[in-house]
């Protein structure tokens, strides 16, 4: 999730969120396939259209499309593979949402609100 979130960042979550935050927000979810706690960005919310290679899909009323910020080139340079996100496991239901990451309280030089991104 670089550069928005760096490894070792200490984050505050809003766990009271009962619906998907707006596009660009950073959220923590339990991945649908694995139950892994993962941090991703909301790329599209309920009812929105997601463009695919061929065609598009319309998200359900409780679904979001979550993506990683990482660019493929950076991941390859770091020896990693493709991000595991909605391109792998599809739309994410609201049940999987743990909370919205809204504030970084460490390290000291990076303290501040987590701004919505692209």
């Amino acid at each position, binding site marked *: 999730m670089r550069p928005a979130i760096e490894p070792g960042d200490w*984050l505050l979550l809003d766990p009271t969120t009962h619906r998907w935050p707006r596009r660009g927000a950073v959220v923590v979810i339990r991945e649908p396939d694995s139950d*892994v706690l993962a941090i991703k960005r909301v790329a599209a919310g309920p009812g929105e259209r997601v463009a695919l*290679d061929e065609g598009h899909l319309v998200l359900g009323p409780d679904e979001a499309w979550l993506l990683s910020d990482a660019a493929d080139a950076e991941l390859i340079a770091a*020896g990693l*593979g493709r*991000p595991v996100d909605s391109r792998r496991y599809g739309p994410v239901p609201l049940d999987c949402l743990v909370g919205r990451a809204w504030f970084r*309280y460490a390290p000291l030089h990076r303290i501040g609100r987590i701004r919505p991104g692209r």
Partner: protein
Amino acid sequence: MFRFSDILAPKTTVRAHCDLPCGVYDPEQARIEAESCYKIIEKMGQNSDPTFTARAIDIKEERADLAKHHLDVLWHDYFKPEHLEKVPNLHELFWNAAKQVSKVKASTDLADAKKLLDLIDEVDAAWRATGGAEKTRVARQTA
């Protein structure tokens, strides 16, 4: 010694979660599992013992799941958008193969299992056409 940061430190770790791929891909993995399904269906036709049938169905479903997993790994991790130039029907091929695995999982018709093998052979041809055999496998010891 007490440290204030111990109180503030997060208690939970979350991951950005990316694959750490080994870079080895081969449709042969999916084919072996699909061949297991084929052989199991064949044996089921030759044996009416209910215990054998129950066990065979259980193993066939397990092997079909493995075949689907190996196909998914190829589709998601090996094939890249640029491969569509050489294999324009790539997505349709994987869609059909994945659907056929589901069919084999629930079927006892040998023709269904054969069709799955044929589709995996088409995936194999696509893998070879995009240089998979040279790029992703480690060379064997030569005699």
